[in-house]
Protein backbone atom coordinates (compact mmCIF):
# COMPACT_ATOMS: atom_id res chain seq x y z
CA UNK A 1 0.00 0.00 0.00
CA UNK A 2 1.17 3.50 -0.84
CA UNK A 3 2.04 5.77 2.10
CA UNK A 4 1.51 9.49 1.55
CA UNK A 5 4.17 11.96 2.69
CA UNK A 6 1.51 13.74 4.74
CA UNK A 7 0.59 10.61 6.72
CA UNK A 8 4.26 9.69 7.21
CA UNK A 9 5.10 13.19 8.47
CA UNK A 10 2.12 13.08 10.85
CA UNK A 11 3.40 9.74 12.21
CA UNK A 12 6.92 11.16 12.67
CA UNK A 13 5.42 14.25 14.35
CA UNK A 14 3.38 12.09 16.73
CA UNK A 15 6.50 10.05 17.60
CA UNK A 16 8.46 13.27 18.33
CA UNK A 17 5.70 14.62 20.62
CA UNK A 18 5.22 11.32 22.48
CA UNK A 19 9.01 10.90 22.79
CA UNK A 20 9.33 14.42 24.22
CA UNK A 21 6.79 13.69 26.98
CA UNK A 22 8.15 10.16 27.44
CA UNK A 23 11.73 11.31 28.02
CA UNK A 24 11.22 14.69 29.71
CA UNK A 25 8.59 13.14 31.98
CA UNK A 26 11.66 11.55 33.62
CA UNK A 27 14.24 14.27 32.98
CA UNK A 28 12.21 16.90 34.84
CA UNK A 29 13.38 15.25 38.07
CA UNK A 30 16.84 16.73 37.35
CA UNK A 31 15.77 20.14 35.97
CA UNK A 32 15.96 21.94 39.33
CA UNK A 33 19.72 21.21 39.34
CA UNK A 34 20.28 23.69 36.48
CA UNK A 35 21.69 22.87 33.04
CA UNK A 36 25.12 21.57 34.08
CA UNK A 37 23.85 19.96 37.26
CA UNK A 38 21.09 18.24 35.26
CA UNK A 39 23.58 16.94 32.68
CA UNK A 40 26.00 15.76 35.40
CA UNK A 41 23.32 13.95 37.41
CA UNK A 42 21.73 12.33 34.34
CA UNK A 43 24.99 10.98 32.95
CA UNK A 44 26.10 9.84 36.41
CA UNK A 45 22.78 7.98 36.88
CA UNK A 46 23.14 6.42 33.41
CA UNK A 47 26.22 4.58 34.76
CA UNK A 48 24.43 3.01 37.71
CA UNK A 49 24.37 -0.64 36.53
CA UNK A 50 25.37 -2.76 33.50
CA UNK A 51 21.86 -2.63 31.93
CA UNK A 52 21.69 1.16 32.08
CA UNK A 53 25.24 1.43 30.74
CA UNK A 54 24.45 -1.01 27.92
CA UNK A 55 21.35 0.99 26.90
CA UNK A 56 23.32 4.25 26.93
CA UNK A 57 26.08 2.77 24.75
CA UNK A 58 23.37 1.32 22.49
CA UNK A 59 21.61 4.65 21.94
CA UNK A 60 24.95 6.43 21.39
CA UNK A 61 26.21 4.14 18.62
CA UNK A 62 22.71 3.78 17.14
CA UNK A 63 22.59 7.58 16.97
CA UNK A 64 26.07 7.81 15.42
CA UNK A 65 25.21 5.37 12.60
CA UNK A 66 21.91 7.13 11.85
CA UNK A 67 23.54 10.55 12.08
CA UNK A 68 26.11 9.63 9.40
CA UNK A 69 23.22 8.66 7.12
CA UNK A 70 21.41 11.90 8.08
CA UNK A 71 24.38 14.11 7.16
CA UNK A 72 24.80 12.36 3.80
CA UNK A 73 21.07 12.85 3.13
CA UNK A 74 21.16 16.48 4.27
CA UNK A 75 24.08 17.28 1.94
CA UNK A 76 22.41 15.41 -0.95
CA UNK A 77 19.07 17.19 -0.50
CA UNK A 78 20.48 20.62 0.42
CA UNK A 79 18.97 20.59 3.93
CA UNK A 80 20.42 23.25 6.19
CA UNK A 81 21.29 23.23 9.90
CA UNK A 82 22.09 19.52 10.14
CA UNK A 83 24.37 19.99 13.17
CA UNK A 84 21.49 21.59 15.09
CA UNK A 85 19.91 18.10 15.10
CA UNK A 86 23.12 16.72 16.66
CA UNK A 87 22.92 19.40 19.36
CA UNK A 88 19.25 18.51 19.94
CA UNK A 89 20.22 14.82 20.14
CA UNK A 90 22.24 15.65 23.24
CA UNK A 91 20.19 18.34 24.98
CA UNK A 92 16.58 17.38 24.09
CA UNK A 93 16.51 13.75 22.96
CA UNK A 94 17.51 11.67 19.97
CA UNK A 95 13.92 10.41 19.72
CA UNK A 96 12.62 13.99 19.37
CA UNK A 97 15.15 15.44 16.92
CA UNK A 98 15.41 12.26 14.79
CA UNK A 99 11.73 12.30 13.70
CA UNK A 100 11.87 16.09 13.14
CA UNK A 101 14.78 15.52 10.74
CA UNK A 102 12.70 12.85 8.99
CA UNK A 103 9.82 15.34 8.52
CA UNK A 104 12.18 17.93 7.02
CA UNK A 105 13.74 15.22 4.82
CA UNK A 106 10.28 14.37 3.45
CA UNK A 107 9.67 18.08 2.77
CA UNK A 108 13.01 18.32 0.94
CA UNK A 109 12.18 15.19 -1.09
CA UNK A 110 8.72 16.63 -1.92
CA UNK A 111 10.39 19.81 -3.21
CA UNK A 112 12.47 17.68 -5.62
CA UNK A 113 9.69 15.28 -6.58
CA UNK A 114 6.07 16.42 -6.47
CA UNK A 115 4.90 12.80 -5.99
CA UNK A 116 2.75 12.75 -2.84
CA UNK A 117 3.71 9.14 -2.04
CA UNK A 118 6.61 8.59 0.35
CA UNK A 119 6.85 4.92 -0.54
CA UNK A 120 5.06 1.63 -0.13
CA UNK A 121 4.51 -0.72 2.80
CA UNK A 122 2.86 -4.09 3.02
CA UNK A 123 -0.19 -4.42 5.24
CA UNK A 124 1.86 -6.69 7.51
CA UNK A 125 4.52 -3.93 7.82
CA UNK A 126 1.85 -1.44 8.92
CA UNK A 127 0.40 -3.93 11.40
CA UNK A 128 3.91 -4.65 12.76
CA UNK A 129 4.72 -0.96 13.17
CA UNK A 130 1.38 -0.26 14.89
CA UNK A 131 1.95 -3.19 17.27
CA UNK A 132 5.48 -1.89 17.97
CA UNK A 133 4.08 1.57 18.66
CA UNK A 134 1.44 0.16 21.05
CA UNK A 135 4.13 -1.74 23.00
CA UNK A 136 6.43 1.32 23.16
CA UNK A 137 3.62 3.64 24.29
CA UNK A 138 2.38 1.16 26.92
CA UNK A 139 5.90 0.67 28.28
CA UNK A 140 6.43 4.45 28.32
CA UNK A 141 3.26 4.94 30.39
CA UNK A 142 4.42 2.29 32.88
CA UNK A 143 7.82 3.98 33.21
CA UNK A 144 6.26 7.45 33.64
CA UNK A 145 4.03 6.03 36.38
CA UNK A 146 7.16 4.73 38.15
CA UNK A 147 8.81 8.17 38.06
CA UNK A 148 5.71 10.12 39.06
CA UNK A 149 4.47 7.82 41.83
Amino acid at each position, binding site marked *: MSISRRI*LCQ*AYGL*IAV*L*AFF*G*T*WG*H*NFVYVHLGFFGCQGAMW*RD*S*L*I*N*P*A*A*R*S*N*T*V*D*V*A*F*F*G*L*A*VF*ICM*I*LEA*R*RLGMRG*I*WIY*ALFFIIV*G*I*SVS*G*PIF*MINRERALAALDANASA*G*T*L*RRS*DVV*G*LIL*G*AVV*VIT*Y*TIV*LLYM*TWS
Partner: protein
Amino acid sequence: MNVSRRAVCQVYGLIAVLALVGTWGNNIAYLPEGFVSFQRTFWGGTLVNPSSRSITVDIFFFGLAIFAWMIMEARRLGIRYVWLYVLVSMTVATSVAVPVFMINRERALASRDTTSIAGTLSRSDVAGLIAMAIVMVAYTVVTLL
Protein backbone atom coordinates in the same frame (compact mmCIF):
# COMPACT_ATOMS: atom_id res chain seq x y z
CA MET B 1 34.71 15.99 -0.29
CA ASN B 2 33.29 12.84 -1.89
CA VAL B 3 32.80 9.85 0.39
CA SER B 4 33.00 6.43 -1.21
CA ARG B 5 30.44 3.72 -0.48
CA ARG B 6 33.32 1.48 0.56
CA ALA B 7 34.53 3.98 3.21
CA VAL B 8 30.98 4.55 4.52
CA CYS B 9 30.38 0.79 4.78
CA GLN B 10 33.67 0.33 6.63
CA VAL B 11 32.65 3.04 9.11
CA TYR B 12 29.22 1.41 9.61
CA GLY B 13 30.96 -1.93 10.12
CA LEU B 14 33.31 -0.42 12.70
CA ILE B 15 30.34 1.15 14.54
CA ALA B 16 28.56 -2.24 14.61
CA VAL B 17 31.66 -3.97 16.06
CA LEU B 18 32.29 -1.24 18.67
CA ALA B 19 28.59 -1.27 19.61
CA LEU B 20 28.61 -5.06 20.00
CA VAL B 21 31.62 -4.88 22.32
CA GLY B 22 30.22 -1.85 24.18
CA THR B 23 26.74 -3.28 24.79
CA TRP B 24 27.60 -6.95 25.38
CA GLY B 25 30.67 -6.02 27.42
CA ASN B 26 28.06 -4.70 29.88
CA ASN B 27 25.36 -7.33 29.26
CA ILE B 28 27.84 -10.13 30.04
CA ALA B 29 27.29 -9.40 33.74
CA TYR B 30 23.83 -11.02 33.43
CA LEU B 31 24.72 -13.97 31.18
CA PRO B 32 25.29 -16.60 33.92
CA GLU B 33 21.61 -16.21 34.90
CA GLY B 34 20.15 -17.93 31.80
CA PHE B 35 17.86 -16.40 29.14
CA VAL B 36 14.67 -15.73 31.14
CA SER B 37 16.41 -14.45 34.26
CA PHE B 38 18.79 -12.44 32.04
CA GLN B 39 15.82 -10.64 30.44
CA ARG B 40 14.19 -9.99 33.82
CA THR B 41 17.38 -8.67 35.45
CA PHE B 42 18.40 -6.64 32.39
CA TRP B 43 15.05 -4.90 31.96
CA GLY B 44 14.78 -4.46 35.73
CA GLY B 45 18.18 -2.80 35.63
CA THR B 46 16.99 -0.26 33.05
CA LEU B 47 14.24 0.88 35.45
CA VAL B 48 16.33 1.85 38.46
CA ASN B 49 16.29 5.65 38.12
CA PRO B 50 14.70 8.42 35.97
CA SER B 51 17.84 8.74 33.81
CA SER B 52 17.94 5.06 32.86
CA ARG B 53 14.18 5.10 32.22
CA SER B 54 14.50 8.22 30.03
CA ILE B 55 17.26 6.61 27.94
CA THR B 56 15.15 3.47 27.50
CA VAL B 57 12.18 5.53 26.25
CA ASP B 58 14.56 7.54 24.02
CA ILE B 59 15.92 4.44 22.28
CA PHE B 60 12.41 2.93 21.85
CA PHE B 61 10.85 5.98 20.14
CA PHE B 62 13.97 6.68 18.05
CA GLY B 63 13.92 3.02 17.05
CA LEU B 64 10.24 3.28 16.07
CA ALA B 65 10.93 6.25 13.75
CA ILE B 66 14.04 4.67 12.23
CA PHE B 67 12.41 1.25 11.75
CA ALA B 68 9.51 2.92 9.87
CA TRP B 69 12.10 4.54 7.56
CA MET B 70 14.14 1.30 7.29
CA ILE B 71 11.10 -0.74 6.26
CA MET B 72 10.12 1.83 3.61
CA GLU B 73 13.73 1.92 2.32
CA ALA B 74 13.82 -1.88 2.25
CA ARG B 75 10.58 -2.04 0.23
CA ARG B 76 11.86 0.69 -2.16
CA LEU B 77 15.27 -0.93 -2.71
CA GLY B 78 14.21 -4.57 -2.52
CA ILE B 79 16.25 -5.34 0.62
CA ARG B 80 14.99 -8.64 1.98
CA TYR B 81 14.29 -9.77 5.55
CA VAL B 82 13.93 -6.23 6.94
CA TRP B 83 12.04 -7.47 10.02
CA LEU B 84 15.10 -9.57 10.87
CA TYR B 85 16.89 -6.31 11.72
CA VAL B 86 14.10 -5.50 14.18
CA LEU B 87 14.51 -8.94 15.77
CA VAL B 88 18.31 -8.51 15.98
CA SER B 89 17.74 -5.05 17.50
CA MET B 90 15.71 -6.61 20.30
CA THR B 91 17.89 -9.66 20.91
CA VAL B 92 21.42 -8.31 20.20
CA ALA B 93 21.44 -4.49 20.05
CA THR B 94 19.87 -1.77 17.91
CA SER B 95 23.31 -0.22 17.47
CA VAL B 96 24.51 -3.46 15.86
CA ALA B 97 21.49 -4.17 13.64
CA VAL B 98 21.06 -0.65 12.22
CA PRO B 99 24.66 -0.18 10.91
CA VAL B 100 24.41 -3.65 9.28
CA PHE B 101 21.16 -2.50 7.59
CA MET B 102 22.96 0.68 6.46
CA ILE B 103 25.69 -1.45 4.85
CA ASN B 104 23.09 -3.52 3.00
CA ARG B 105 21.29 -0.32 1.97
CA GLU B 106 24.54 1.02 0.45
CA ARG B 107 24.99 -2.28 -1.40
CA ALA B 108 21.40 -2.08 -2.70
CA LEU B 109 21.94 1.55 -3.80
CA ALA B 110 25.23 0.57 -5.50
CA SER B 111 23.45 -2.14 -7.50
CA ARG B 112 20.97 0.49 -8.82
CA ASP B 113 23.51 3.24 -9.39
CA THR B 114 27.00 2.11 -10.34
CA THR B 115 28.70 5.19 -8.87
CA SER B 116 31.03 4.33 -6.00
CA ILE B 117 30.27 7.64 -4.25
CA ALA B 118 27.89 7.48 -1.26
CA GLY B 119 27.67 11.26 -0.98
CA THR B 120 29.58 14.37 -0.09
CA LEU B 121 30.62 15.75 3.27
CA SER B 122 32.43 18.94 4.19
CA ARG B 123 35.69 18.67 6.13
CA SER B 124 33.92 20.15 9.17
CA ASP B 125 31.26 17.38 8.92
CA VAL B 126 33.99 14.74 9.02
CA ALA B 127 35.75 16.51 11.91
CA GLY B 128 32.43 16.71 13.81
CA LEU B 129 31.66 13.04 13.27
CA ILE B 130 35.15 12.03 14.41
CA ALA B 131 34.75 14.20 17.54
CA MET B 132 31.36 12.57 18.28
CA ALA B 133 32.85 9.10 17.77
CA ILE B 134 35.75 9.87 20.14
CA VAL B 135 33.33 10.99 22.87
CA MET B 136 31.18 7.86 22.40
CA VAL B 137 34.15 5.49 22.43
CA ALA B 138 35.53 7.23 25.55
CA TYR B 139 32.14 6.91 27.29
CA THR B 140 31.95 3.24 26.26
CA VAL B 141 35.42 2.57 27.70
CA VAL B 142 34.30 4.20 30.99
CA THR B 143 31.22 1.92 31.11
CA LEU B 144 33.38 -1.16 30.59
CA LEU B 145 36.01 -0.31 33.25
